[in-house]
């Protein structure tokens, strides 16, 4: 099958180009997109991309597959390409390209850092551990599973237009993960950092993030919860 890959080496190329490679794909089973990319790399060893765990846990191989962001390692070929059609692979949109499918994720991590993604508790440290009821623990389901692959944030137009100001769905999901944690006592401080016109309120609820999340999480719902908390605190 034909695989079209975004190629760009800033040291030698004036501008990026889509390059087609013919890859022999076995027809008796359904490969993952990453397998096809590995086969393409056997033909052209200069193709650059990130990958590690190959089972959707590390979040390294987030890329744009036939127009939709996803993890190449857990995206079956049959779900993105009709028989006889081309597989088109581009880097995650909205981030600077380091080379081919490798993007510079610095600004994504910077936005993640802004939400202080760690427990803050002003109470004295107990002797053993901070306990949490099973009910309170259940509130973190659907929030803690994020692997920071950036598929959601780089599919969000609000992030494309204001990557330095809008925290983005991945960061906001984590912001709510700590706002919802019964062991965290810094909710009002966290909310005060989010009430400006950009950090949260650039979300227009188009739900691209929900559509692409490889872990099936729902950042839009988390953002809605943050908004409700902001209203309850300030209104």
């Amino acid at each position, binding site marked *: 099958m034909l695989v079209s890959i975004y190629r760009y080496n800033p040291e030698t190329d004036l501008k990026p180009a889509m390059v087609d490679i013919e890859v022999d794909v076995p027809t008796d089973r359904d490969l993952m997109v990453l397998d096809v990319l590995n086969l393409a790399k056997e033909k052209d060893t200069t193709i650059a991309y990130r990958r590690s765990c190959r089972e959707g846990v590390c979040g390294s191989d987030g890329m744009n597959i036939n127009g939709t962001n996803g993890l190449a390692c857990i995206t079956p070929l049959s779900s993105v390409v009709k028989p006889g059609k081309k597989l088109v692979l581009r880097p995650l949109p909205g981030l600077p390209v380091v080379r081919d499918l490798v993007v510079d994720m610095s600004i994504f991590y910077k936005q993640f850092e802004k939400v202080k993604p760690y427990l803050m508790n002003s109470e004295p440290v107990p002797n053993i551990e901070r306990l949490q009821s099973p009910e309170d623990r259940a509130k973190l389901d659907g929030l803690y599973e994020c692997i920071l692959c950036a598929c959601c944030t780089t599919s969000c*137009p*609000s992030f494309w*237009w*204001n990557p330095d*100001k809008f925290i983005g769905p991945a960061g906001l999901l984590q912001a709510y993960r700590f706002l919802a944690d019964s062991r965290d006592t810094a909710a009002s401080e966290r909310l*005060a*950092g*989010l*009430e*400006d*016109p*950009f*950090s*949260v*309120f650039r979300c227009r609820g188009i739900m691209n993030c929900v559509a692409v999340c490889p872990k099936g999480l729902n950042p839009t719902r988390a953002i809605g919860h943050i*908004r409700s908390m*902001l*209203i309850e605190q*300030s*209104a």
Partner: protein
Amino acid sequence: MVTSATNFSRTGLSDWLVQRVSAIVLLAYSLFIFGIFVLYPELSFEQWSGIFSNNAVRLFSMMSVLALCGHAWIGMWTIATDYLTSLQLGSAATFVRLVFQLGCALLITVYLLWGIQIFWGS
């Protein structure tokens, strides 16, 4: 915390609330005007000016003009800060955006004063 000097109110939260509340006012006013045309299919000028000489209708109309002004400023500010940014326009972005927002401010002021003149003028 990202600061901004040109949005409508103090915080993004109040902007967001103003946008929603003004939208509800505008929806109610649209339904009201639509209702007049349904109730009076053969509406004459006397009936029309009779309805608008009622103080409650004038207040409702003025409230809608104010809602429109707030709603328009927040909406246009959002569009401007999405599309007239340094990513698209380079170093000229802030100047271009401020000129655009000045134009919006002028237009909104005209609508507000014109609205006052129409509903409360002689």
